[in-house]
């Protein structure tokens, strides 16, 4: 065993609380951090504090910003050791997954020093201000604008709204795409701005989905004043930064789906419980879904291996978001089909809690192929960037 692996193993043995060595039993047990952080247990708080102190919530970020300063192969070892003991993620965070990598690439020294350590320690919870009612798949059509205060050119004034801002009602800060130059072309007039959700003029309304309550919100900005130093990169560079960030988001959604299926009851076990394995069509659908999941998991592994050995992801990585979400929809649809009359309940009485969850999950899954870039947009990307099929204008 390498010295590093030994060191990691010993540290985890001494520092990972026993109750943190099993998968979360539900989203209620997740730790998101922030000013209003809620911890399911004292162990959860302790686990975050200890991991954050070593910088291992962000293993590869530089030490100067509170990160772990690990080389990629060391981070892999840490990940393997965490998996080995079934350790929970100490922190779920859009700051870690999305904003941090972008600040490391595009942020100023001041911005990194200010925000990264707080992300590592889970002190500030971030939300993402991207979509608008008029800018979904066509994100660059966004209209939320930021203009310089005529009397104070160190301040931007933001007006407009955002939609689908996950957890905006619980977040402390937002990273937000705004239009700073109305005269520039669609993509070049956009900037990437950071601001405190407690700023005067920010208001948040939660959104109900077909599946019921959701983390999604609509967020409104009415003359919100933001210091000019909070603009990341250059004015007009926002679209480039947004695209870099979306790549992180898509990888995340594909992974999340993969984990989700791993935690669920196997389809065939469910089919046996509901006594439908004798139906040859349902049995074949179960097998088809299982085989497709197997092939997809193998493809994720192949993709990771390719990225590791070649230094960049292969063409197969572009299908992860598309196939992962479509497969998840199919599996959720199959679950309610297996459950029959038990799979159409909305509330108690008359249905068991897990049956109601089945229905909510099925309904929620319909958003998977829309959020984070629709399946149709993913197909466009594959066709144009991977398969070299042009738009006909060239």
């Amino acid at each position, binding site marked *: 065993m390498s010295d590093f692996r030994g060191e990691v193993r010993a540290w985890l043995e001494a520092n990972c609380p026993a109750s943190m060595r099993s998968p979360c039993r539900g989203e209620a047990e997740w730790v998101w951090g922030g000013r209003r952080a809620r911890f399911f247990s004292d162990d959860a708080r302790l686990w975050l504090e200890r991991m954050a102190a070593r910088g291992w919530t962000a293993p590869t970020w530089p030490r100067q910003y509170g990160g772990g300063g690990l080389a990629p192969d060391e981070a892999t070892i840490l990940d393997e050791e965490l998996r080995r003991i079934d350790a929970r993620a100490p922190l779920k965070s859009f700051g870690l997954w999305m904003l941090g990598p972008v600040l490391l690439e595009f942020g100023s020294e001041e911005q990194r020093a200010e925000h990264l350590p707080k992300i590592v320690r889970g002190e500030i919870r971030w939300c993402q201000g991207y979509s608008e009612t008029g800018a979904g798949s066509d994100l660059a059509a966004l209209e939320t604008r930021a203009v310089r205060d005529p009397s104070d050119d160190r301040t931007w004034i933001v007006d407009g709204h955002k939609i689908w801002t996950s957890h905006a009602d619980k977040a402390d800060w937002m990273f937000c795409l705004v239009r700073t130059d109305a005269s520039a072309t669609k993509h070049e007039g956009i900037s990437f701005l950071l601001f405190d959700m407690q700023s005067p003029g920010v208001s948040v309304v939660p959104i109900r989905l077909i599946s019921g309550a959701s983390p999604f919100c609509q967020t409104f900005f009415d003359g919100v004043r933001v210091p000019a130093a909070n603009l990341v990169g250059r004015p007009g560079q926002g679209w480039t930064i947004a695209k870099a960030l979306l790549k992180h988001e898509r990888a995340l959604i594909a992974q999340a789906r993969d984990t989700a299926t791993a935690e669920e009851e196997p389809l*065939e076990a469910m*089919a*046996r419980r509901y006594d439908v*394995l004798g139906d040859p069509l349902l*049995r*074949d659908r*179960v*097998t*088809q879904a*299982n*085989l*497709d999941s*197997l*092939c*997809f998991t*193998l*493809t994720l*592994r*192949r993709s990771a*291996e*390719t990225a*590791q*050995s*070649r230094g960049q992801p292969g*063409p*197969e990585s572009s*299908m992860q978001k*598309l*196939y992962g979400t479509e497969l998840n929809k199919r599996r959720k649809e199959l679950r309610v089909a297996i459950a029959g009359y038990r799979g159409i309940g909305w509330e108690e009485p008359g249905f068991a809690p897990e049956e109601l969850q089945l229905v909510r999950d099925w309904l929620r899954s319909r958003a998977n192929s829309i959020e984070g870039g629709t399946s*149709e947009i*993913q*197909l*466009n990307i*594959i*066709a*144009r960037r*991977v*398969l*070299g*099929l*042009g*738009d*006909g*204008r060239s």
Partner: protein
Amino acid sequence: MAFVLDDVEEAMRDTARKWTREHAPVMQLRALRDARDTVGFSRAGWRELARLGLAGVTVPERWGGAGLGFAALGVVVEELGRTLATLPWLSSLMGTEALLGGASEAQRQAHLAAVCAGVRLMTLAHDEGHRHSRALPSTTATRSAGGFVLRGTKVMVLDGHVADAFVVSARDGEVTALFVVAAGARGLGIERSQVVDSRNAARLTLDGVTVREADRLGGAELLDRVLDRATIALSAEMLGSTVELFERTLLHLRTRRQFGVPIGSFQALQHRAAQLFCEIELLRSVVREALVAVDEGRSDVPRLACAAKARASDTFALCAAEAVQMHGGIGVTDELDVGLFFKRARVTAMLFGDAPYQRDRFARLEGY
């Protein structure tokens, strides 16, 4: 790094690709078909490939083989699939795997080196009905003095019309048994089958063929082992055919112009091509996993054989159907190679069990 080809495999792929394009292009299949060639493949080509080690890729070197594994075999047959080569690699694989898995030292001595050298052909004769089955064969092996008498009919015997020997499955009472039968055996009738994809197969009639006790190789376990391995290798060939056909179709989408633009600029076609890309990427992953599993001697080989073949059958068929449609009028002409791929997709889908068969077997192996 099981999924990423290593340097040796990359080199093998390059060699195989160069060789197949020069010595076994699609044009060759077309020529053999049009000439109604009695052999159906190039014997010289097969001996040449045997000299390069392909006739016995998985056979240990001491028996005259290349001593490589299935991962290496997969890399090579993927290239053979690209040109729809009819060379008898699959029949030879089944023959050699049967010998390696169940034969006596004397039997191996008698056959392996010659098969690996490409001078002797050996194949498996198992299927009997209209589709593949692993149930007890109908062909009977009745005990007689010093051996057995075989009676029955075998179909879709790959390269059976030119094979020198067969591994024949039969029922010995209530168990399956495999026997080596020479092509010249008394009571053995061989009739070539003209299959739609121009790959070579034959129908055998065993009318009281006598075999010795020493000709018996093994039972159901050996048969499963041979069929699972052949299924995985065939899936690798199907992957090659699918990828080649997809690339040809993409080229057509980029170059064929209608309404003043390449037809590949139409979103209706782009999305179908992108869907196909996803399906093919999944196929590549499962084929590689199955090949590697054989080399690692893993217990999930039978399940992975089902997984790979189910997907290979469905994906090749989908790709073939899309290729014909996207090529338009020229796609349904005999002049274009696309039709040859379309035909091969149907035949390979049936070989060793189609997708529903594989899914059913996968479910059974998983216990449901």
